[in-house]
């Protein structure tokens, strides 16, 4: 039994945590939230220099050729720092889509630039509130509008889900966002430390990514993979919320003693700890399944995702509650985790969707 990260991976964690403490404090998150600039470009450059964007990209495409366990460690730490970076869009979605479905030319052309952080990628699917019909059409010229695409105003390329009259009814397209036929309308969101934009394609140049009519299967696969990494970010963020609540409760006095000595507060924090621990342990299993391409991945991903969504939501809201009125102010940092938990839950689809996927995976496993 070895259900733990290796010494090298733990060293990477220490290094990442130290780097983020120096370069991505809560002050940096606040700057991203309060400023007009859509993200912290300077931090992005530094993160790319550390090689994080290149983690799982093979060496032949100028990547580091490391495993998903290393990427899990980085995701955990970025989540913990509530980093204002397009990392999940570019690395867990766009890069993964290229790795899984890119042609040799597409890989050769884009992966080295994604690895170096020179370009940012993202992923666009939703067109309506909730899950609804995809009406964006075309393969080499696409037209349609995508709603609130994460990091779309700063991204250079986008993997776009388009409608197909073949196969499973959808295809993936690769679109260069730096063209006149793509218009970006920045939207203000729940978490402005991660910018979003509506994307409208007016017969924009595009190319197929993977096979036509296999888009829905590809989305399923990509979302299962991304769900594990999102879950790590969520769990990392939930731990920060717990830590913040704990520090405040220890220092805040009411009725002559620290509020951390009241069972109402202690039990709240104990439950945060329990949720976070369960989510983290499920993330371990997800990381193992992702890294080994195990047939259990759909179940492992959904399990990690469901518990991480719940843990981050609970920790985010109860951290504010523990802070009392101050937690509700702009001045305090509690809002960062409250915002981010909702953002990460929404991207990839929320709790209900992943609960359903979990049970479907259980049934599939029982039938096998």
């Amino acid at each position, binding site marked *: 039994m*070895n259900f733990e990260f290796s010494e090298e991976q733990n060293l990477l964690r220490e290094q990442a945590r130290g780097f983020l403490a120096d370069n991505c404090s809560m002050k940096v998150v606040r700057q991203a939230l309060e400023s007009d600039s859509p993200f912290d470009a300077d931090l992005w450059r530094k993160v790319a220099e550390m090689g994080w964007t290149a983690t799982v990209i093979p060496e032949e495409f100028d990547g580091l050729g490391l495993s998903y366990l290393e990427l899990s460690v980085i995701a955990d730490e970025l989540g913990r720092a509530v980093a204002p970076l397009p990392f999940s869009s570019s690395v867990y979605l766009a890069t993964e889509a290229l790795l899984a479905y890119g042609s040799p030319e597409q890989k050769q052309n884009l992966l080295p630039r994604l690895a170096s952080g020179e370009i940012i990628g993202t992923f666009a699917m939703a067109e309506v509130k909730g899950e609804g019909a995809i009406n964006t059409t075309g393969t080499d010229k696409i037209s349609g509008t995508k709603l609130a695409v994460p990091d779309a105003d700063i991204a250079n390329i986008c993997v776009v889900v388009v409608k197909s009259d073949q196969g499973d009814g959808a295809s993936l397209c690769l679109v260069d966002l730096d063209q006149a036929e793509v218009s970006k309308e920045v939207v203000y969101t729940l978490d402005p430390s991660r910018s979003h934009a509506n994307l409208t394609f007016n017969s924009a140049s595009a190319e197929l990514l993977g096979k036509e009519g296999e888009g829905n299967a590809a989305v399923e696969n990509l979302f299962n993979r991304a769900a594990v990494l999102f879950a790590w970010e969520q769990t990392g963020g939930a731990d920060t919320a717990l830590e913040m609540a704990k520090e405040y409760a220890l220092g805040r006095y009411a009725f002559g003693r620290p509020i951390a000595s009241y069972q109402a507060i*202690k039990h709240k924090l104990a439950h945060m*700890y329990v949720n976070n621990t369960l989510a983290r342990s499920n993330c*371990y299993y997800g990381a193992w399944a992702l890294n080994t391409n195990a047939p259990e991945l759909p179940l492992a991903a959904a399990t990690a995702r469901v518990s991480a969504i719940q843990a981050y939501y609970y920790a985010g809201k109860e951290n504010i509650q523990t802070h009392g009125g101050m937690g509700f102010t702009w001045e305090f940092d509690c809002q960062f985790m409250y915002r981010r938990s909702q953002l990460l839950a929404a991207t990839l689809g929320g709790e209900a969707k992943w609960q359903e996927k979990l049970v479907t995976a259980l*049934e599939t496993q029982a039938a096998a």
Partner: protein
Amino acid sequence: MDFSDSAEEAKFRAEAAEWLQANAPTDDEIKGLDEMAQAKLWQKRKVDAGWACIRWPKEYGGRGATAIEQVILNDEQSKVKSPSTQFFSIGQGMAAPTLMTWATEEQKRRYLPKLASGEEIWCQLFSEPAGGSDLAALRTRAVKDGDDWVINGQKIWTSGAHYSDWGILVVRTDPDVPKHQGLTYFFVNMHSPGVEIKPIKQLSSASNFNEVYFTDVRIPDEQRLGAVGQGWQVALTTLMNERASIGGTRSAGQAQSLLKLAATLEIDGEPASKNKAVRSRVADWYAKEAGLRFTGYRSMTAMSRGEVPGPENSIGKLVAAPMAQDLASFALELQAQAGVIYTPLDESFDNMFQHNYMNIPGGRIAGGTDEIMANIIAERVLGLPQEPRVDKGIPFSDVPTSGGKS
């Protein structure tokens, strides 16, 4: 990160599996024996061959095995059909570690081997009507008389008192000092004159616990563990092991059992397993169970590396017990009218959720209530301060109680 055994672990697993399969009592061997006789036969055979209490030192009946080897043995044991040895679990899980830490060498050699072999059974005499979560508020008195102590009072919630030979016992030897300082720890022969045992009928109709009354029971001073007044410290050794042994083993696979049950039932003309509300609950409970299982794997990894498992282990009971209760309640409601049919003492699958529903209220209380477990996590894991205590620093005899002063 992988789930396979190391080479040594694999070798140990193979050995354990081979021995267990070859030596588990056959149906013929246990024919006509009651549960206790079956348990004793199996336990003795295991200990003689070095396959019981394996973590104990050899001279006390064990084989000095590692924690991970214990986990592997448990795993293999669960795959082999054999008599239950649960009668010995309190003695081996709680009394033994306490003896190991606090008894004299001579006592260890006298008591531990018989505890290991199942020849002598031990129970735990801690809780009292006035001392549950606040265990140190216990009031059973011990008064020194020559070389003996004379015990008077009452214990409660004692599992297996009626078949036990020995009991570990915490009593008050000095009521005029603050409560934790006036306690002393003994072990007592359960066959002593003046020990009276009355079973407690639970709301589930079963009787797993007893009240134990002490009337002028004499205990020789050499059966004291730790110094006079040091009983609380000794009791903590026992309690840490209790929580570890009661921990997160409950309810594994319950979410899948619920899904299986739901597939056989209907809601609005559809299988209940296709109902979205049902699926949502199954998903949540499965995620919790999986989280506990993988938390256990992380602990096992720590053990396999020779480390002491971290405090994350302490969440098991706090998560598993309330969850199993909610799940059982939900499963009964799914059965609609049939969900009320209950046969006490029947533990078959058809009665499983009823059985759980009626028994889990005890599980949420025994060995530390949900609330105490949450306090333990808050204080020992997160480092939060204790609630101020109004009984701190004052003599126990001055502490207010439900019935006035102590």
